[in-house]
């Protein structure tokens, strides 16, 4: 797995104010993997994640003059990506197609996920069942809960970082996380019972 360790994520935005076109290619390369991963976790749709990743960068470029430098470039991009997911989720048409394809896609993915040469097939299958159930439960969370959960447990960000990204208080993030985990635990428990 490739994880972005480029320090540009942590560079205060004021040092990148302007975001010239020449520098933008470097920003894309530094952040595209992380944003794609985040968007894939939030949408569970590779094509959607790819499209939203591209849209995030294009929108960031178009609004680069509005970049005030009060946060890191990575935080700013993540904020744009989450807003795009929220906008997309609000579309009823998108919800319809998403629900339609998710059922077929999950069945196919599930069939591919059990390797023949797994060292402990039963344990691997159980872990994958958990992962699938959690993924489905995450997809049913509200966008803000989903974003908080994904940033915390996938990107391993601190609560303070998440609060900066979502533009809310630390207490609000903790509340989102608590509700998200409770909801996921409830849904996963229902699947097992």
């Amino acid at each position, binding site marked *: 797995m490739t994880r972005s360790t480029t320090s540009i994520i942590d560079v205060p935005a004021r040092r990148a104010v302007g975001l010239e076109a020449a520098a933008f290619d470097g920003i894309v390369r530094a952040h595209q993997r992380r944003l794609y991963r985040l968007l894939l976790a939030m949408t569970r749709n590779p094509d959607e994640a790819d499209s939203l990743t591209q849209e995030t960068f294009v929108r960031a470029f178009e609004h680069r003059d509005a970049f005030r430098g009060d946060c890191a470039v990575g935080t700013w991009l993540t904020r744009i990506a989450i807003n795009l997911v929220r906008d997309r989720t609000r579309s009823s048409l998108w919800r319809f197609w998403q629900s339609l394809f998710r059922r077929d896609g999950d069945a196919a993915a599930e069939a591919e996920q059990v390797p023949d040469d797994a060292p402990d097939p039963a344990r691997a299958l159980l872990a994958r069942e958990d992962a699938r159930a*959690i993924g489905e439960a995450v997809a049913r969370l509200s966008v803000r809960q989903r974003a908080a959960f994904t940033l915390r*447990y996938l990107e391993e960000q601190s609560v303070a970082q998440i609060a900066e990204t979502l533009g809310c208080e630390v207490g609000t993030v903790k509340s989102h996380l608590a509700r998200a985990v409770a909801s996921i635990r409830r849904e996963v428990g229902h699947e097992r019972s």
Partner: protein
Amino acid sequence: MNGREEQGQPARGLDAWAIEVREGAARDDAFWARQSAEIGRHTRPRSVPAWGWVAALGTASLAATALAILMTRGPQPVPAPAPMLAVAAVVATGDDQWLMDVEKAVLREVPLAFEPVDFLLPGARDPDAE
């Protein structure tokens, strides 16, 4: 404290989920290159398309044709000088005339005011002539 522990969620399911997402998000270099190129299509300065060159050539042709038509029409009438130039010419002419008058006055043997006397009494100007 670990977030998984503080929320009381079994680590196994969350770890499996995170690993699955990370593995699912892994793509080859061609994918990232293609994605960068797609983004770059919107963010990099665009080169002039083919139709742009055609339009530029058409404009240049029209300009050349118009210039050729203008040149074959022959010499155009000289426009009247601007008012300021005319005033300047008048002033210059007046100065020249004044200088010529001064020069004539200096060279004149009899002041202009005594010319009638000189005409009536020719001997008065040159007594030796008599």
